[in-house]
């Protein structure tokens, strides 16, 4: 906003000849910022304001909606749909942890061990992005089909007994259970974990590994004391890039889940498109946004990586 209002006044014909060029020079950065700021206003600030306003309106499609400062919508939405909120956080959290466990070794491999295969592996990591999110998710219905080899293997190893016991699967199947949703989320957001991890691992000076080895650190100690701490910026941004979209996702829950795996994204979708309850949908979106913001802030504080990021 500042840049818009501080735009230089049109040059008056009486203005002294010497000063304006310097002044204009000083304003150049602001002018260059203008498109970006306009973009933010039109596509971020305004929709946010509309959304905020919608969330405190009441009415119906026929009668129209009016701002009545009906904040109760927030409370109603939260008390009605807290299980879905909780589920979103839980599933997104589980998927993030899985992404980290799967993504870290892979990113490590690409950064330090892949050699000339590095680009190829990178492409393989990104390749799924070339197809639609939906198609990728639907593919998991085939992978996890009840009569498929994956479920058979898990069954014969009695792993499904264990996951059923903790409530992540139901009986002999994986599809239409929380586990399937978490698998889908993990798969779909894995590249968001790997890419920042790779970037921060790749940036680590190889001589630091040598120095650690030279100072009596065994390879695993080197990893624990040097590599991992130095990759923290990647870990933090990777977990954020995974967790945030995963918490708002609804496609995986829709296609791979069941009635008891619906996430808050599904609720928002239903409220908005089917029930046409725009205020509740807007309020739910805001609650989700606020919840994520709080968690992220807390997380960044805790991980203490402000100066590393």
């Amino acid at each position: 906003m500042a840049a818009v209002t501080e735009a230089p006044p049109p040059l008056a014909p009486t203005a002294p000849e010497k000063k304006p060029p310097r002044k204009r020079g000083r304003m150049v950065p602001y002018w260059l910022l203008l498109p970006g700021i306009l973009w933010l206003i039109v596509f971020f600030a305004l929709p946010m304001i509309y959304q905020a306003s919608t969330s405190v309106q009441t009415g119906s499609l026929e009668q129209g909606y009016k701002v009545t400062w009906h904040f109760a919508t927030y409370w109603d939405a939260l008390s009605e749909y807290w299980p879905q909120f909780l589920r979103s956080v839980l599933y997104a959290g589980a998927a993030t942890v899985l992404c980290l466990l799967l993504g870290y070794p892979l990113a490590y491999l690409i950064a330090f061990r892949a050699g000339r295969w590095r680009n190829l592996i990178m492409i393989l990591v990104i390749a799924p992005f070339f197809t639609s999110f939906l198609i990728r998710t639907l593919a998991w219905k085939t992978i996890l089909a009840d009569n498929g080899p994956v479920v058979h293997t898990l069954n014969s190893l009695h792993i499904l007994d264990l996951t059923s016991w903790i409530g992540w699967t139901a009986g002999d199947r994986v599809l239409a259970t929380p586990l399937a949703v978490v698998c889908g989320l993990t798969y779909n957001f894995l590249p968001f974990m790997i890419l920042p991890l790779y970037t921060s691992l790749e940036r680590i000076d190889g001589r630091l590994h040598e120095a650690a080895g030279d100072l009596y650190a065994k390879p695993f100690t080197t990893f624990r004391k040097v590599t991992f701490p130095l990759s923290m910026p990647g870990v933090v941004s990777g977990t954020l890039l995974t967790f945030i979209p995963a918490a708002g996702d609804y496609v995986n829950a829709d296609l791979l889940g069941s009635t008891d795996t619906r996430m808050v994204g599904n609720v928002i979708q239903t409220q908005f498109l089917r029930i046409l309850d725009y205020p509740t949908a807007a309020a739910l979106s805001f609650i989700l946004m606020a919840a994520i913001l709080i968690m992220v802030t807390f997380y960044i504080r805790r991980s203490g990586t402000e100066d590393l990021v």
Partner: protein
Amino acid sequence: MTTTDNSGDVRLSGISKTYDNGFTAVRPLDLTVPQGSFFALLGASGCGKTTTLRMIAGLEEPTTGAVHLGDQEVTNLPPYKRPVNTVFQSYALFPHLDIFENVAFGLRRRGIKSVKKQVEDMLELVQLGEQARKKPHQLSGGQQQRVAVARALINHPKVLLLDEPLGALDLKLRRQMQLELKRIQTEVGITFIHVTHDQEEAMTMADTVAVMNAGTVEQLGSPADLYENPQTTFVANFLGTSNLIEAEVDTKSGDDIVLRAGGGKLVLPEARCSAPTTAGGKVLVGVRPEKISLTHADDAGEIAEGRNRITGRIADSSFIGVSTQYVIDSPVCPEFEVYAQNIDRDARLVPGAEVVLHWNPAHTFGLDAAQDIDAGVAEVEEDAA
């Protein structure tokens, strides 16, 4: 320091390194660095000196040969099992740890619990007591360098390896740190192996210098020995400046060899000639620029008998304070360099003047004429750039 213990000896036998891409960095090499010495590996970039050092540290696996520390063979030991520490080029300090933890790193890895006293003492030694809780990026280059040294020394290694430790510092700081390192080495008495491309640094600090070129050691010896009595044109040119003249063996008289160069005759003590000398054979005759006296042609008669002489014309002269450097155009050598102390300056010695160059034959050295006369020159210029 006066111990006869040889556990700090470093013995390299037939060690070599060829990379997967076929590049041979080090050719089979035998080298012994005695316990407690300050040993320098000197050479231009790409000569194999760093690779040699890394093979001692265990960071590089030798293609052939063996590395011994004292009586223990360490060729196949991983770095963290070798009683050797390294000061890395550009230090490789851990950016996420403060100075204290950087220095304590090695102690902690060896399971030593109470590190406080030791670390503080070590930081005192390198005069960084105040900086203990700062992060590496908050220190200056010189301070970081001292942290790197402290981090390695605190482990009391048998051998300390230094890989171009002063390369990132400016000239003044470099001089200061050279003295500092020398002081520390004398104090702790550990074997230091120091890799550098700076011949002056090698000569001021080291007891023994090995000059490396293209994966082999050209010559090994004390700095003075290397300077006064180079065995190859590479050493002659790489260490300081040498004037090299192509000459033909004429006769031998006693311990001296008489050579013909241009129209005149030069005398070379046989002991100072590393090349085979058969009558009629070619030899490169060398002399350092500061050994030469310059006399105006008009006063040629005043020059004492028995000195080697060459005539020429001053092509260029530059005054650099303590001395004046002349470039002489002579029939035997187109660019003969002479450094003259500015004691009694002869006002006639200006470009264009005809002069006689003369020196004590004892300062002459002879080299095998089958080598490249300019070997080592380019490298010096490159590194100076």
